[in-house]
């Protein structure tokens, strides 16, 4: 062996590694409990992923296309889907709105040499939290029961809304 220090240290590393491997195996075989909705969903087989792309007709503001993708036809109502995307678009428009509050924030930031960004949460970030909550709520109420999962666009760099379609294993899911 290398030396006393090396031995102790390597033992620590190996035991730590074993802990991690065990927890990973436990997760994989569903032995560990307290999963979130997303973890449970990942045990189900992913049939397909649909990507809703950005809509640039109004410039560089963050808007998503409301065109209903054909893969979702059997899973969800078109109205429901369009409603979700339209609400998301409205929320993003609110985040990027050029209005009194954003100007105030901008001017105040300029006067303080932009140091307030280090301590204050910006308006955009507050709306992003609202969006995250909305997506969670939509997933719980509407999409999860139909075997779908919406991914928050911020996790994909605001490029796409990723909808994961899971294999439909349940017997009566209203097909």
């Amino acid at each position, binding site marked *: *062996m*290398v*030396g006393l*220090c*090396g031995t102790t*240290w*390597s033992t620590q*590393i*190996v035991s*730590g*590694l074993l*802990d*991690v*491997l065990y927890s*990973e195996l436990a*997760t994989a075989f569903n032995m560990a409990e307290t999963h979130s909705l997303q973890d449970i969903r990942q045990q189900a087989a992913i049939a397909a*992923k649909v*990507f809703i792309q*950005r809509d*640039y*007709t*109004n*410039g*560089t503001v963050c808007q998503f296309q409301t065109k209903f993708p054909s893969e979702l036809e059997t899973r969800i109502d078109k109205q429901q889907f369009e409603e979700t995307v339209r609400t998301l678009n409205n929320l993003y428009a609110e*985040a*990027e*709105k*050029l209005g009194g509050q*954003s*100007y105030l*924030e*901008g*001017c105040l*930031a*300029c006067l303080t*040499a*932009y*140091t307030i*960004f280090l301590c204050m949460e*910006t*308006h*955009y*970030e507050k709306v*992003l939290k609202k969006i995250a909550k909305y997506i969670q709520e939509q997933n719980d109420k509407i999409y999860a029961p139909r075997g779908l999962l919406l991914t928050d666009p*911020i*996790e*994909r*760099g*605001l*490029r*796409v809304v*990723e909808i994961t379609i899971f294999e439909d294993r349940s017997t009566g899911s209203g097909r």
Partner: protein
Amino acid sequence: MKNCEYHQIDPQAPSTPNPTLPPPINANKKVIRARRKWQAFPGRNRFYCDGRIIVARQSGVLPLTLGLILVTSTLFFIFDCPFLVEHLTSCIPVIGGVLFVFVVISLLQTSFTDPGILPRAGPDEAADIERQIDNAGSSSSYRPPPRTKEVLIHQQVVKLKYCFTCKMFRPPRTSHCSLCDNCVERFDHHCPWVGNCVGKRNYRFFYSFIVSLSFLTAFIFGCVTTHLAMRSQGGKGIIFALQQSPARYPLPLIIFLDSPSCTAIELVVCFFSVWSILGLSGFHTYLVASNLTTNEDIKGSWSGKSGSEGSRNPYSYNNIFMNCCAVLCGPMPPSLIDRRGFLPPEEALPAATEIDLPSLEAKNDINMCRQGFRDLSPPVPL
């Protein structure tokens, strides 16, 4: 020494006992604690303070910029301010101080802020886009499908190009910086003076930096000229003024520097800076007022040179005030790359399996810088 010992004891040591494998060690430590996303970032950037600060791979001439500003301002405060406070007004160091602080803070913010980097497309997303491109181009069998997409923005046709590195169609006004190897939103230019790209998120910092720097250099230039003028009035002309040596400054300073040479240094630096910085500020003021980027201006995207006639900037509000407000006082977009988020455990796991062999010789490796080893570590593709 440790390595020699190791070789002697175990001649059947693995063939690569070299420190090219340290990153897996660090990854190993992180596996226990989960890796942060900045550690697997594919672009050419460096991260400090556990992902809070981001800079480009080459710092360019940022140390020179900082050095010039600091040295000139320090010389100004030491050698010119006392004279001017005595003969003019005590507001001078106050104004100088405020401008100096503003300049340094704006510079550091421009350098250390994420300019608006777009994260690269994940494998599923990239495959989906490829499929769409193939479907679109399936009619033409002789040539590969064009990797451009046309969109209509405010009744203006804009071509979106496909980025082969980031595997996505670039949003409008986004460009790929070859120095940083990232797509940056509203890409203006890569500034070597600042050591970072200038894009959507740090354009306002960059603009306030160059404007405040032009005020600072003009102010110092004015003060130094006034100082020399006042000294030469009292004596036998400007040569006499430059030859005067200060009697009241501390001895070490007199040995290495004396007032005339410092004043001359300041004068030269400020003279050349004022014209170039003022010019740059003027140019960027024009860009802000017409809601253009340097990239678009250079390429002539909207001026009709390379495009068709009648092409106008679709992003402009056609109102100078609105454009300025939108660019400088608009809402601050968040960073899209989430540097300090944690990687999902499945991505950390492959790194764990690589560390069996090096784990025994890691004593030296732990001390190695864990931040600069992005090249050596096997980055897990996002």
